[in-house]
């Protein structure tokens, strides 16, 4: 049989190493399928088996220990041609350090084949035990025999949903099983249980591979899931520009603001703080102002404080830091808890819901307002910003009202009523 996929039959493994048999069986299996070398990508990694890389006539990828399975999955997903074969060679070490990648590829049924060269130890680094070393199997670093118990890799991969799994014990002609694995759409894994003459045989003289394998339950098996659907990458035909999704805020009026104005808004999760902030910022841009906004909330977004920092300016805003706000607006106790950090620096106005007390902490006496009572908890933040506008020359309150009316909130908010309420509360200005 002329070689098509290997450049030489003299692959430099130690004499008697079964890795050579796997290479030759792979050659035979690919010939059985009638594919050409450039129809095949073989991914190898670290371990004696990886030496095969330079003897292959296929496309070759030589990657990281155990990560070969994941790069191969990436190659499969990236290849436009589903007929290309993607094959990974790993050892038992690679299979265990890369176990996560095997499971990830198996349960997605990514169309590829992993060929595990399981000689029950790390050959390349001097014969250390791997997670697939059976109990009692001696290695140079564990002369008394491994205390682990190995595990059933094939069983695991089968239960993860692989389309094809088989285990072969020892050498011989297993090109049929390999061909079946390569042919099968979806994820396939073939484990070849073998023995490393240089370390395995030397440390366990007289031991028979079939005996160890049987004792371990590593008996030959084959499992096929004919219904397995192989993973297909979904491609969006015409993804929409992210800029198209943004509201264009055409300016409708001008703000009289002649300086940078920094607002901190403090409230509770679920009470519309971030929405109120966004709409406020939109209205400000419509008034010709430059704006920055920043949300502050815990990682558990549904509970606790929800605060925001807003900067408005007639000039372009360079720095987005807010250390001493020109207005601190707090509508809930959670918000107050978070906003305490601003109190010491506070030089501007302090609007506080009347239900909250801050004691002596504030340098600036708060203006207590019935934000929650008047607008309800879920509109208190929105309403408080309305009061701030009614009370100041930042930009016209009517602009904010207009943006709210046209927003998703629109229908659910009695905007005119709140505008009236804000003007009433603001009339107490300077009290």
């Amino acid at each position, binding site marked *: 049989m002329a070689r098509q996929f290997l450049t030489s039959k003299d692959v430099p493994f130690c004499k008697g190493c079964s890795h050579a048999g796997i290479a030759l069986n792979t050659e035979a299996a690919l010939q059985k399928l009638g594919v050409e070398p450039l129809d095949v990508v073989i991914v190898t990694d670290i371990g004696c088996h990886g030496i095969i890389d330079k003897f292959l006539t296929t496309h070759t990828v030589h990657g990281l220990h155990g990560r070969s399975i994941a790069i191969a999955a990436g190659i499969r997903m*990236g290849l436009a041609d589903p007929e290309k074969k993607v094959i990974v060679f790993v050892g038992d070490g690679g299979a265990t350090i890369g176990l996560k990648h095997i499971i990830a590829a198996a349960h997605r049924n990514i169309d590829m084949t992993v060929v595990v060269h399981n000689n029950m130890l790390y050959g390349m680094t001097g014969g250390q035990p791997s997670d697939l070393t059976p109990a009692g199997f001696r290695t140079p670093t564990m002369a008394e025999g491994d205390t682990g118990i190995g595990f059933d890799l094939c069983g695991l991969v089968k239960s993860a949903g692989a389309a094809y799994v088989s285990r072969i014990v020892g050498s011989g002609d297993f090109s049929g099983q390999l061909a079946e694995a390569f042919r099968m759409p979806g994820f396939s894994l073939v484990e070849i249980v073998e023995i490393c003459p240089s370390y395995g045989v030397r440390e366990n003289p007289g031991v028979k591979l079939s005996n160890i394998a049987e004792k371990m339950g590593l008996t030959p098996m084959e499992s096929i899931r004919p219904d397995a659907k192989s993973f297909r990458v979904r491609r969006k035909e015409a993804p929409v520009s992210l800029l198209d999704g943004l509201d264009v805020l055409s300016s409708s009026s001008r703000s009289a603001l002649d300086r940078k104005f920094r607002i901190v808004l403090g409230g509770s999760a679920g009470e519309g703080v971030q929405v109120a902030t966004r709409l406020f910022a939109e209205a400000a841009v419509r008034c010709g102002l430059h704006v920055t906004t920043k949300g502050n909330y815990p990682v558990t977004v549904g509970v606790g404080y929800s605060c925001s920092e807003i900067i408005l300016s007639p000039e372009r805003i360079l720095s987005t830091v807010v250390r001493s706000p020109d207005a601190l607006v707090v509508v809930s106790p959670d918000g107050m808890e978070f906003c305490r950090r601003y109190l010491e620096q506070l030089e501007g106005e302090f609007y506080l819901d009347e239900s909250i007390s801050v004691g002596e902490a504030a340098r600036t006496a708060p203006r207590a307002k019935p934000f929650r009572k008047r607008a309800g908890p879920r509109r208190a933040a929105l309403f408080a910003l309305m009061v701030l506008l009614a009370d100041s020359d930042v930009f016209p309150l009517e602009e904010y009202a207009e943006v709210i009316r046209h927003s998703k909130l629109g229908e659910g908010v009695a905007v005119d009523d709140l505008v009236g309420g804000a003007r009433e509360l603001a009339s107490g200005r300077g009290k």
Partner: protein
Amino acid sequence: MAATRASEQRNVLTDGSRLMIEAMARAGADTFIGYPITPANLLYLYGMRRFPVSIAAPDEITTLQWMSGFAATGHVPVTATSFPGFALMVESVNMAYMMELPMVIVQAQRLGPSTGTATGGAMGDLLLLRGVISGGYPLLTLCPSSLEDCWELSALAVRTAVYLRTPVVLLTSKEMVMTHQDLNVNTLSAVGRVKRSLYSSEAPFEPYLPQENLVPEFLPVGDERHQVRITASTHDSRGIIQGVSRAGLENTLRLPKKLEKNVADFTRYELDEEDGAENLIVSYDVAAMAAREAVACLRRQKTGASLLVVKTLFPTPAAYLDVVGRYGRVFVVEENAQGQLAQILFGGDERKGLHLINAIGRMITPEEIVEKVSSHG
């Protein structure tokens, strides 16, 4: 900034994440592999929506490996992460560097060490990025310091990744990717799709044979006419694994030289010098925003101040050293406690006239920069 007529304005509110992802997609990045982490959440969200192919990976090592697989087959993949995720990617980033695979990794810094504070901003990973490739070779790293940079440098990252066959890191931080700012999108430059040229000769393909600019031509794994070999191990121009051979070492040494040779293609910085100023403020990332404001303020106060905002971090352009060498007083502003950029520019030595302005757990304010500069001026 020149005033734009109202009719030409398309004002929107946006965060840096949106601009980064959009610019990368327009530049020709086509695949997003995501693994969630704060504060890269928005990058993930937009990446999933915007790229023709977007896939959720089960962990960050898989992310980088899948990206490498996509890159090897001719795609330009992107991911976004933060230190804890990036740490897991490090071995794979070295692999992609060695295999010469184009990709962009957005690293949005947060407060460390370790898991630190997920929602806290920081600029703490500069030295990590500097030394991340074994051997000390530079990994191309760009760092935006404004919304415009988020747009331009992201497009540049994609173009450079493809032209130079290399992974590129966009180093950013929480405030840059999450804060919303107004922007007239009509001021954004047009971003064209990167043109990929593939090896077209009949002669056998050598995947690591350098051209004049030291960059090898590219063919995807799976090509119909030529065998393609890629490898993470020391290799020659054919992609054949070598021990410590001359051909192997030459190829390895070509990798940093490739960046050096083409450094002008990706060197970006902002130098705003004032005549006669003795103070130079040097910054990057979000701290540069405070630095710009501080410089404007100092000039209003008639304190002479020049500004250098560095955007290409690695390989570090020689121009930075020329600039800092011209000033008697240099103030390096960065949101970390160790003065990482200062260490890169000045080494560990005490240098007369070098002043560090640092903070952790909060943003640096323009006021404290002004105060520090004024107190030394």
